[in-house]
Structure formats: structure tokens, C-alpha cells
């Protein structure tokens, strides 16, 4: 039971925790006078001579909820309070596969400076990302019973994936304009993992025989975790030594990553860009544990790796009539079929949640840009696509106004907006990728907010001017 509690705690932590650099689409990615846009592509040009911020530079929070519609599960009174939990309607509204992602990104320190040949940047940030997917069978079975899952070919196939990760990132970026058409960028990342939970398997299949109603349960659980607590194994049981937070745990579990980007300006109006972000890994080797759950041969209900319940046996029926502790004894015997065993792990390696983007844009005028972007992003559950159309209005080298519309599987109502303004070196920005999320957050597929304050220095220099200046400087050097 203790292991189950710990396991449940990990899952709960994973669900509540949030993660990382939100590698889903943000209007900030399309801003032209905000150095944060390089988060989407390290090749994007930064017009400021330099910038820095401390603690206020960037906050990103987001919830991505595909499938679970709060209002479908409840009916409300005139005051908007839920009065009826409507399970049938709620279950019907679910997708076959549903997922909830949450993420938080907190920039601790950012700075950047133009150099002779490019632009150098440095960031230190905390990233959390969590993702949980579950299929419809899980809720449908609980709410509507097993009558819809009859036969060997039609089990209630419950699959849950949980992934949660909390890391620190120290990155060093360099962007360089090769020509007046090509920009390239590179960002190297040194990572320190604080906590990680990842389900390799957490599934169950419940088969119901249509004739006898015999229930066959097959299940598997394989969860790896790295905890911020020291623990020991005693007699096969896991015991956490000290639950108090130890700051030293922030500096364990090292990893490396890289972002690669390129931008090609076809002509004065058209351009394309592409990036691969978060290519890398983390080696988790501090307080790592592997939970393995399986079905054991606990007695007559065990059959070839499955728990098969065909009803109470003769002996159990007699015990039910004669033994006042029958229910407790039955539960005790049933629990012997299921085990969740923690095993100490020397370490394991996980890849970063990578994403890739391809963008094309058209500058109607120097102030008005229209973009189309395809992004594949991964928050731990495989690559998911996002298609975004964006308008960026950039004015007086101070202001960015961005409007986006993003489509993702199961999510088509993402109308985003972003504003950025630079008042004499004080850059403030705010953005969301789904303005509707604030009005009805429980029923929208996205709730997202990103904001921050930075200080910029120097005059704005366009990319073309940068090329000219650089060429002039190189020519002067050669003459010398």
C-alpha cells in the first residue's frame, strides 16, 4: 500500500506540476521587436543592441486540454454554479484519446548583446512540463459500465500516460546573419533536472465474456521517476529518508541540448524559417526509482498473466455465509494478485521534449507581416501538430501587435493575441494563444499566458543595416 501511495503521489505531482518551455505556439514567437521570439527559432533576428532582465523577463503558464470539456459534465444554475453532474453527456463529449498538458516557464535571468558577427544571448530559466493522456475507455467504463465492452476483440482498453518533468536550463545562444538573406542560429543548453516522472506503461485491458460475464483483467505498470528526495530500500519497500526540500537537488541530473535554426529571406516580401529545438537529453541518476506493476499468481483467479474473475467459488460462498470477516479477507486475497514493486535505478536517460517549426511569411509592408507556421511539438506524448496563421504589426521600432489563429487536433478555437511595447528601453509584453480561454477556461482547449519585462539598450538595427555595418567593418579591417 505504501508503494501505491508513493506511486499515486508521483502521478498526482505529475498532473499538478507543469513544465517547461512552452513549446506550443505563442504570439510572442511572431514578434519582431521582442528578443523572446528567438525562443521559437534561434536564427530569428534581434534588432536590439542588447537586453537583459532579472526575474521579470518571462513568465509562461499554459494548460492544453484536448477532450475534457468541463461544461459537458455539468449543468449549471442561473448563477453559473454546477448543480448536476451529467456523466452520460460528459462521457459522450470525450475524444477517444484525451490529453491535458500544463506547463510553466520562469525566466530567471536573460541577457543578450550584439557582437561584430552576430548576436549572443544567455538565459537561465526553470521549466516544467506535464502531460497526461487518457483514453475514453477509462471514463466510459467507470461511468457507463462494461456492457459496451464485450468480447475478446472489444476490451475496455484503458491507457494512461503521465509525464512530468522539472528542470533548470542554462543556455547560450548565437545568431548570425550570413548574408542579407540567410540567418542561422544555435543555442546550447546545459540542463539540470530536478524531478522526472514518466510512464512507460500504465494500462489495463478489461475483457468481459459476453456469455458468462467472466472478467479478465490484464494490466501493466512501468513508471520511472527521479525524485527530489533521498530514499532507501528496506526489505523491498521504499522509504523516503527526508521529505524536506534540499536546494542541492536543484543541481543534479545533468543534461545537454541544442536548438538549431535558420531563416531565409527570399525577397523583400517573402521569407521562410525553420528550427529544431530541444535536441538533447538528460541523464537522471539522482534518487531514481522504477515502479513495476504486474499481476501475480495469487491463486485461482490467475491465468497466464491475467486476473480472471469468473465469480465466487464454492469455498468463498461458504465463507461469505459463515465468516464475518469474509469481505476483508476477500479483499486481502485479491490484493495479492496485484503488486507494485519499486526498484532502485542507477540512472536512466531521457530525451528532451523536442519541437520543430517551419514558417513562411509575407511582408505586405515593412509594418505588416503575415505568417503561416507548421509546428510539431512534443510534451512527452509524441509529436503533435499545430498549424498557425499569424499577423504581426510592427510599428515605430517599438510596438508589436500580433494576432494568431492556431489549429491543432481537437482544438480549433485558438485565437491568440500579443502586445509588446518598448518605452525607451523598457520592454513589456503580454500574450495569449487563446483569448477565449480566459472567458471559459474549463471548456477551452488552451489557456495560455506569457508576459515579461526586459530592458533593452542601443538603437534598433535592422538586419540589412547589420549586414552593411558588418561589411563596412570587415572592409576597414582588411584595408588596415
Amino acid at each position, binding site marked *: 500500500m505504501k508503494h501505491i501511495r508513493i506511486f499515486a503521489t508521483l502521478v498526482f505531482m505529475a498532473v499538478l506540476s507543469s513544465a517547461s518551455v512552452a513549446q506550443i505556439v505563442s504570439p510572442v514567437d511572431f514578434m519582431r521587436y521582442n528578443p523572446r521570439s528567438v525562443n521559437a527559432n534561434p536564427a530569428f533576428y534581434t534588432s536590439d543592441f542588447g537586453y537583459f532582465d532579472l526575474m521579470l523577463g518571462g513568465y509562461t503558464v499554459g494548460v492544453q486540454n484536448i477532450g475534457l470539456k468541463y461544461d459537458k459534465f*455539468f449543468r449549471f444554475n442561473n448563477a453559473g454554479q*454546477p448543480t448536476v453532474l451529467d456523466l452520460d453527456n460528459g462521457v459522450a463529449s470525450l475524444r477517444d484519446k484525451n490529453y491535458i498538458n500544463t506547463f510553466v516557464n520562469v525566466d530567471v535571468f536573460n541577457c543578450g548583446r550584439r557582437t561584430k558577427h552576430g548576436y549572443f544571448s544567455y538565459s537561465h530559466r526553470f521549466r516544467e512540463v506535464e502531460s497526461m493522456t487518457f483514453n475514453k475507455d477509462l471514463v466510459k467504463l467507470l461511468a457507463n*459500465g462494461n456492457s459496451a465492452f464485450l468480447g475478446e476483440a472489444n476490451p475496455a482498453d484503458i491507457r494512461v500516460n503521465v509525464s512530468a518533468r522539472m528542470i533548470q536550463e542554462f543556455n547560450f545562444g548565437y545568431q548570425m546573419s550570413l548574408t542579407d538573406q540567410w540567418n542561422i542560429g544555435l543555442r546550447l543548453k546545459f540542463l539540470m533536472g530536478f524531478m522526472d516522472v514518466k510512464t512507460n506503461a500504465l494500462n489495463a485491458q478489461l475483457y468481459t465474456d459476453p456469455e458468462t460475464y467472466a472478467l479478465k483483467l490484464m494490466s501493466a505498470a512501468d513508471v520511472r521517476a527521479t525524485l527530489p528526495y533521498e530514499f532507501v530500500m528496506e526489505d523491498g519497500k521504499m522509504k523516503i529518508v527526508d521529505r524536506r526540500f534540499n536546494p542541492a537537488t536543484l543541481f543534479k541530473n545533468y543534461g545537454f541540448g541544442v536548438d538549431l535554426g535558420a531563416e531565409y529571406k527570399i525577397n523583400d516580401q517573402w521569407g521562410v524559417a525553420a528550427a529544431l529545438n530541444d535536441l538533447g537529453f538528460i541523464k537522471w541518476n539522482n534518487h531514481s526509482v522504477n515502479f513495476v506493476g504486474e499481476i501475480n499468481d495469487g491463486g485461482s483467479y490467475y491465468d497466464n498473466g491475467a486476473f480472471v474473475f469468473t465469480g465466487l467459488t464454492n469455498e468463498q460462498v461458504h465463507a461469505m455465509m459463515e465468516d464475518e470477516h469474509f469481505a476483508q479477507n476477500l479483499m486481502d486475497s485479491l490484493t495479492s494478485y496485484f503488486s507494485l514493486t519499486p526498484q532502485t535505478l542507477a540512472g536512466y536517460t531521457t530525451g528532451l521534449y523536442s519541437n520543430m517549426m517551419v514558417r513562411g511569411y509575407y511582408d505586405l509592408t515593412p509594418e505588416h507581416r503575415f505568417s503561416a507556421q507548421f509546428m510539431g511539438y512534443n510534451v512527452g506524448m509524441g509529436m503533435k501538430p499545430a498549424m498557425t496563421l499569424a499577423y504581426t504589426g510592427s510599428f515605430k521600432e517599438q510596438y508589436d501587435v500580433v494576432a494568431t489563429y492556431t489549429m491543432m487536433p481537437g482544438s480549433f478555437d485558438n485565437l491568440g493575441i500579443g502586445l509588446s511595447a518598448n518605452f525607451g528601453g523598457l520592454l513589456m509584453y503580454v500574450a495569449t494563444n487563446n483569448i477565449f480561454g480566459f472567458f*471559459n477556461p474549463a471548456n477551452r482547449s488552451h489557456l495560455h499566458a506569457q508576459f515579461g519585462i526586459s530592458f533593452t539598450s542601443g538603437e534598433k538595427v535592422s538586419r540589412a543595416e547589420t549586414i552593411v555595418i558588418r561589411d563596412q567593418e570587415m572592409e576597414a579591417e582588411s584595408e588596415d
Partner: protein
Amino acid sequence: MVAILMLSCNKNRFDFDNLETVEGSGQWKLPIGNVSTTLGDVLKQLGENDLISYDEDGNLQIHYSFKLNDILKGSSFLSLGTMNFSSEIRFANPFPGYHLPDPIDTVYRFQQSIELDADSAVLETAVIKTCTMLSTIQGNLGNVSRVEISSSDITMPNGDSLFTTQSEVDLAGASFHLYDDFGNPDTVVVFNYAIYYQLEGIDDEEYHFETILGMNNLKLQQLSGHVNQFVYEFDIDTTFSLPLGNIDGNLNLVGAKVNVKERNSFENLYAQLSINTAEFYGGSLAPSTIFDHYPFVLNVVPSYDYVSILDNETVNLSLNPKYDAVRFAGLVDFNPNAVDNLVTIYDTSTLSVAIDAIIPMQFNVPGVTYIDTISLNLGEISAPSLVKEIILGMMFESELPFNLSVQLDMYKSTTGEILGGLVDHEMLVNGSFDGTPVLTNESISITQDLLKKLLESDMLIMRVGVNTGGNDVLLNLDNGLGVTLKADVLYGGSMDVNN
């Protein structure tokens, strides 16, 4: 700030204080149990039972054994009790009123015979187990100085004939030898009296005196003689109980066998056992006779061990579980042919009869109903409002050689009201008459209304009907009944979360 402001507008949507009901619907299909039992299992549960057994093939049979011990005891023959024999003697006084100056010592001798009367036997010899012989003399003989009693018919334990001058003699261990002067057996014991007295003369016209010879508590240890025919009647009731509960109806048992053994330790004494009544009975039911004719006569031969006198006699029985007693009545006819054999009877001789009835559970049942009640303690349980119907599906797999029909009625004992049937029809479980398991599917639909009635009731009245469909069937230990029980639980509607 704007975001927070907008989000705050939605806070009511997460206020669950007014959540009142849960609505939903669905259906669970659940296996409940897979239970089977055999008649052998049932017998085990009934515990030790001398009545029902099984043969080497596992066929069930009623094995009913009982003994009629000591129908006749030799000691009852040989206990003669207390007998007094008196004799009065008179003879003339030749000189009435004359008195002798000096008394003259004289002796008067005479014989007294007693007859050991036996209606059914002529005794020859007998060994006395207990007896006290008392003699008294009363009369006008004058001063009696001594009385001598002797008998050559009685031999004392030391081998001498009886000779005593005592008025009280213990005859234990002595023996009678009852032959006449010609050596023929008779029943007369002759005592010779010699009375010594002083003759003085009396006024009376005659001398007279009375002798009383008492044989107190005369019990014989052994008797030899010739026994005539005599008859002893018996009537024996034995109660029992059949462990079959409240069953109404007759079991027509087929192929019942009866064995009878006897032990007759009366040497050379043959007898006939005539059974006039042998029947099961109980309550107000008509008795069920065991034999098809009466009297049922059995010859009883002398034997110190039990010997069979009836071997596997087939009887037909119609047994009703309400029978709780069996009665045997009749008579024992000793020496029925009045054969004049010399018979020795000991006080330990007995006649006992052992009856061993083996009744295979082979029967036909035109229709027997078992009625019982099942107590329910469901008072603390309330009917969940979301549960609309529970359909219990039952698949019976029967090897029992009889059909079953089951009715279940809900009963409220506080009002005496039958609230209705738990099942809206008579459930049938088909039996197997050729050894092949027979499947029967049945279902019970428990609606919410029915569930409320079930919770309202505190007892189920169960009526289980049994019939063999016109077949003679034989129960075997391996005959089994299995039932697979499954449930469809249909739920739907609203459930108040505040209750």
C-alpha cells in the same frame, strides 16, 4: 491582471456547493459465482449420519439397523420367586386326658412333597442360584426338641443330599434332581421330616401339627428338562428423524433389502419369529408397511452368535420424510412343534433379533415439495436510486436425476403479508435421467419496485418441488448440481448527492 479578472468571472463554475444530483446511466455485467455441489458434499455437510450411507459404487442408500435385544431372557424363566408349601398332619390320641408321669422321648417321621410347577416345561435337574428354605412347625405335639429335614432330590454343593436340623437353610449352589423312584423325570421334590418331641399326653382327641416349608426367592441358575411350546409377544417402537427438513410428499423407494439376524442362546430351543406389524409411521400420515404380507415368519435356531435368518429380502417402501418412528410387533413361538427335547436353560440365555434394512435411494417421486424459509436481514440497506434493474442470470448444470421447480415468495413476518414473488414464474431446473448433465437457463429480474419489496420483507418462503418424471432414479454421491450466476446491473437516472 486582465486575465486574472476574466478568470475570476468564472469562479462560480467551480463552486460545487450547489451540486445536487448525479445523472448517469450504464450497465455492468458481472459474474457473481460459480458454485457446484454434489450429493456427497451435502452428506458431508449433514455430518455424521448413520441413516444414509452409500455402497461401493457411491449409490446412496438408507441403512437402517436396529436390534431387538433380549426379546426373551432365560432369567425370566428361572426366577420362581417365593413359594410356601404347608402340610397339616393329624393322628388320634388314644388316651385323651391322660398325662404320662414321665414324658417319653419319641420321634414322628413323615414325608412332604412339593411340586415345582411349570406349565411349559418338565424339569429334570436344576441348579439353584438363590434360595432360602424356611421350615416351621406348629401344633400340639408338646415339647419338640429337634426337627430333621432331608431330601434325596436336593444335592447340596458339597455333594451330599440335603440333611438339616436348621429351620433356615441356604440352598444356593444346591441342585434339584427330579426323578421318581423309577428314574423317570417328575416335578416332585420329596422332603423327609423327623420330628423329635417328648410325649406327655394331652387332653385333645388327636394330635395335630402343621409344617410350612418355604422356598424364598428361588432363582435357578440352570435348568434342564423338557420344554413345551410357549409363545412370547413383543411390540417395539423406535423413533428416528430423517434429515430432510420440511418435505411434503412420498418417496416411493425401490429395491429395499432387509436382512434379519438372530441370536438364540437357549440350547436346543427352536423358535419362530412371527412379525405381524412392521411399518413406518408418524404424524397423521397413514403408516407405510415394510413387508408385503403378514405374518412374516422367520425360523429362529439356537446359536450363541448372530446368524442370518433373512437375507436381502426385497421390500417396497413408500417413505415419507414426516415418518419419525418404526414399529415392529409380533410374537416368538418357542418350540413351535412341541418337540420333546431335553433342554437346558441358563439364566443368561437370551433371544435377540437384529434387523438390518438397506434401502437404496432408488425411487420415483410423483411430486414432493420442500418448503423452507430464509431469513433476510436487509433492514440497514436502502435501495440505491440509480439502480434500475438487476437481472440475475442463472445457468444450472444438473446431474441430479430429478426435476426441480423453485418458487420464492417475499414475506413480511410483522404483518403476515406475502409481498409477492421474487420470481414472477416458477423456476425450473431440469434433471438428468441418463447421466448426461442437463443445462437450464433461468433469470430473475429485480426491478427497483421489487427491490423495495425485497428490502421491506424479512423472510423468503422457498418452495422446491421435486419430481422424477415417471422414472425410477437412483441417487449417487457424484450426482451434482452446478449453478453459474451472473448479473446485469442496469442503472440510470438521478442520485441525490446530499443523501
